[in-house]
């Protein structure tokens, strides 16, 4: 017999020689097999963490409480509506333990205070990663198809944005990112639809190029296209990295397709005829509060001014003087939807400002650009480039249609599977790193990528990434009731001739009325209930400063008396609040006793002088508006309602609601109404 066969047969005899042996061996094997599962459990990673947690709390003073709350085994948070199946708390055992605030060792740290309960929302909804996984590697770092690694902490606000479509005070990065999506023109090429089906609309105002030849020269367009930031550091126009020939042909098409603006030249000729008052330039620029919207680089290289309109550091290099004069005289002739008000400058003021602005130029800018007259082939190539690059997605251009769906839809970019992404060599394989790289260096992904180079800082790129990461499938699949709707700008349009005036003065660029408009100046929705007729007439004629600490102020428009009256009557009649009851303060001529009582309340009980000035000589409060003439400015009913609840009349105002009694509010209103100021109707300059 072969030795191996002999050996096998003796082994068989030893193990299964008789029934008892066979039974014993089979039982042993069965027991071993049964032990596999408990052994795997015993050696599982999460089990080790639970043992480490128990030894961590063993020595603590609060060990008894912590141990009582500890539950062995796998924990799971299941929230079907949110699509959450999270087992993170199996290892992260201290998340809900208020007593573990001093533990910094992971995975046992207490979760920082947030407005939501962890059990009600789960973990992956904000942090990403694989909820059902029970090993660290799989839960945190998986790159497999359909799975995602955990989200770096700096993008955590994207989690909030999945449900909160509106701006939250606690998520500045997300808010900035969302504002950038609409302000940098992203949504002009990329469609983004919110989960409720509404489109994210752009809020920027890219200029129309149909009359561009009136405004500037081909050489300027060429230099601008080559490097927009070299002209104005703060511009949102991206760099398309055009070759010299491409920039030459693009500028050739834009100039040749431009049509002259009817009537503009005649207007400009008359304005240019007026003599400029050179010395008055800076003060007119200051008085008109141009800097509220336009920034200029100062000697130190810092931008000073607002970002509503374009930067004016080198405006003299760009704008032709006759165009600038016509624009200042009435911007709506050139661009009917501009945010710039029609100031109604006199011919001399136009000439003065034109000269002042033309002097803002850089003699080094655009030197060395010499363009020969274009040949038709170059113009045709320029047009093809405009179509290819999608210029018309933002700018109105003669002869080119606005493209539809020019770039990929980004409505669910936050759930883009890693398998669909081509990562660059050496790049971290994760969605945030891809988005950041794509935003900051789009052309690194190939020379044929059309997306241009935006001038973004690292925090801006992170903010934009946060906003994009919040656009997830989960955000769309959850029930509508779990989402907070976005605040969408209304398309409120004031009626009639006064409405036309409001548009001409571009009131909406700074003021908000009925949910439309900017936030630079006070909301005017209830202005008619708030102010007195004569004060409003005087204010529109010559806006004096209500809040001395503010840097941005109401400019002065040269309104005619009839225009002024029309606007005043419209505001007083239309912008009335139903909450301000004129009968609440029945007696307009209050007794001196009530006024005196109000004064006491003002200075002692409510200490209003900490923020307001009621008396120029004694009070210094510098936060709220000066009240020395408030009796000539506001209505008694408004003051009363305001004191009762300021936020009800103007949400978000900083004046605290002091829960005043009716009696106190009436007495204070009486005192404030007695402050008429020195000048007639408070129009002191």
């Amino acid at each position, binding site marked *: 017999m072969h030795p191996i066969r002999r050996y096998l047969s003796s082994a068989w005899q030893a193990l299964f020689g008789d029934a008892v042996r066979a039974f014993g061996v089979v039982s042993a094997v069965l027991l071993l097999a049964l032990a596999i599962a408990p052994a795997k459990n015993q050696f599982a990673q999460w089990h080790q963490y639970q043992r480490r947690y128990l030894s961590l709390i063993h020595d603590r003073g609060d060990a008894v409480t912590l141990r009582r709350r500890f539950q062995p085994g796998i924990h799971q948070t299941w929230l079907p509506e949110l699509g959450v199946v999270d087992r993170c708390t199996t290892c992260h055992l201290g998340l809900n333990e208020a007593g573990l605030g001093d533990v910094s060792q992971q995975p046992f740290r207490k979760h920082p205070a947030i407005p939501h309960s962890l059990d009600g929302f789960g973990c992956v909804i904000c942090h990403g990663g694989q909820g059902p996984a029970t090993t660290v590697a799989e839960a945190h770092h998986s790159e497999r198809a359909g799975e995602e690694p955990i989200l770096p902490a700096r993008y955590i606000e994207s989690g909030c944005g999945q449900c909160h479509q509106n701006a939250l005070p606690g998520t500045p990065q997300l808010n900035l990112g969302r504002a950038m999506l609409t302000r940098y023109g992203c949504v002009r090429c990329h469609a983004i639809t919110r989960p409720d089906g509404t489109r994210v609309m752009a809020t920027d105002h890219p200029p129309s190029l149909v009359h561009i030849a009136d405004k500037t020269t081909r050489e300027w367009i060429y230099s601008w296209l080559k490097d927009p930031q070299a002209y104005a550091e703060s511009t949102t126009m991206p760099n398309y990295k055009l070759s010299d020939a491409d920039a030459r042909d693009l500028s050739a098409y834009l100039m040749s397709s431009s049509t002259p603006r009817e009537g503009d030249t005649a207007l400009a000729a008359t304005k240019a005829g007026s003599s400029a008052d050179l010395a008055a330039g800076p003060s007119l620029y200051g008085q008109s509060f141009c800097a509220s919207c336009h920034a200029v680089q100062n000697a130190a290289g810092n931008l000073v001014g607002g970002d509503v309109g374009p930067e004016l550091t080198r405006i003299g290099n760009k704008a032709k003087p006759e165009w600038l004069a016509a624009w200042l005289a009435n911007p709506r002739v050139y661009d009917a939807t501009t945010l710039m008000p029609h100031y109604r400058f006199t011919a001399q003021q136009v000439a003065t400002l034109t000269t002042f602005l033309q002097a803002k130029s850089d003699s080094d800018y655009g030197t060395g650009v010499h363009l020969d007259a274009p040949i038709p082939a170059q113009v045709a190539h320029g047009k093809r480039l405009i179509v290819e690059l999608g210029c018309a997605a933002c700018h109105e251009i003669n002869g080119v249609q606005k493209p539809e769906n020019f770039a990929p839809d980004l409505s669910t970019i936050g759930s883009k599977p890693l398998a669909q992404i081509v990562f660059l060599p050496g790049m971290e394989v994760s969605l945030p790193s891809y988005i950041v790289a794509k935003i900051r260096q789009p052309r690194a992904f190939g020379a044929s990528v059309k997306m241009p180079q935006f001038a973004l800082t690292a925090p801006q790129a992170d903010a934009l990434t946060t906003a994009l990461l919040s656009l997830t499938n989960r955000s769309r699949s959850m029930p509508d009731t779990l989402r907070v709707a976005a605040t969408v700008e209304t398309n409120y349009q004031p009626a009639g001739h006064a409405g036309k005036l409001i548009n001409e003065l571009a009131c909406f660029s700074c003021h908000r009325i009925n949910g439309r408009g900017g936030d630079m100046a006070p909301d005017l929705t209830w202005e008619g209930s708030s102010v007195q007729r004569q004060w409003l007439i005087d204010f529109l004629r010559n806006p004096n400063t209500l809040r001395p600490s503010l*840097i941005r102020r109401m400019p002065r428009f040269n309104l005619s008396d009839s225009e002024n009256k029309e606007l005043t009557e419209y505001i007083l009649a239309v912008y009335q609040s139903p909450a301000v009851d004129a009968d609440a303060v029945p007696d307009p001529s209050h007794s001196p006793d009530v006024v005196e009582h109000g004064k006491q309340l003002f200075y002692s009980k409510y200490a209003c002088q900490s923020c307001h000035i009621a008396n120029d000589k004694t009070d210094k409060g510098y936060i709220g508006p000066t009240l020395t003439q408030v009796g000539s400015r506001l209505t008694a009913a408004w003051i009363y309602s305001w004191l009762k609840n300021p936020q009800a009349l103007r949400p978000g105002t*900083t004046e605290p609601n*002091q829960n005043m009694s009716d009696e106190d509010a009436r007495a204070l209103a009486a005192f404030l109404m007695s402050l008429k100021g020195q000048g007639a109707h408070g129009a002191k300059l």
Partner: protein
Amino acid sequence: MITRIRSMMVRAGIVLVGVFALVGVAGCKRPAQQATTLKASAAGTALVESSGGHQLGVTGTALKDPLVVQVNDDQGTAVPGALVEFHGPFGVTFDPAAMLTDTSGQATTAVTLGTIAGRYQLSAVTPGKSKAVTIEIVEMALGYQQRVGSILNEKHCSRCHDPESSAERVSNFNNLEVKPHAFAEGDTLNKMSDADLTAIIQHGGPALNRSALMPPYGSTLSASDVRALISYIRAVADPPYQSAGTVYARK
């Protein structure tokens, strides 16, 4: 015969282990060598913080301003070309973590704080002429709640409580007869309990027999807003606030 074979195997084993160890050491050393390819051309004797210390950052994100330190010699003159290394607790990253000082003797790095809210003790080290010189730099990372507090502070509190004016905001501090406490005044505010701070924020100064110049915010701010503000006040306190918390006796 067998013993000879065994001794040969043992010797071969020792040699093998030695080779592995060498390879291992060499392998481990490589990144360290890369970090020290910076050749210092000079050395100073003092290190000073130029800017970027005491910033309020946000957990897990880069600080707004870079951290700048300067290497000086005995006369207090800036030393260009000196090596500076930055160190911090786990989770803090520096970009770059080691560098040579520039022509004005300064080393500039971008700091990203870790994910735990609180005070971060960072350090900058320069080899120096005879012995290494180290300085400590403190930065603060605000968590979610503290950041909400800092935003509320910006809107409702800082115009009176912060004596410093900025380009966008004129301080009202000097206009007040009774001066408010700056939130960093740990010496005073650390002694006040959370309950007292809550009372004074919600019901105004008179609630604690203090000035009525501090108005009540109980109907303007929610309870969670007030908690967030207090967590912010505690975070910026200098000297640092020590929570009384629950003290347990150790076994």
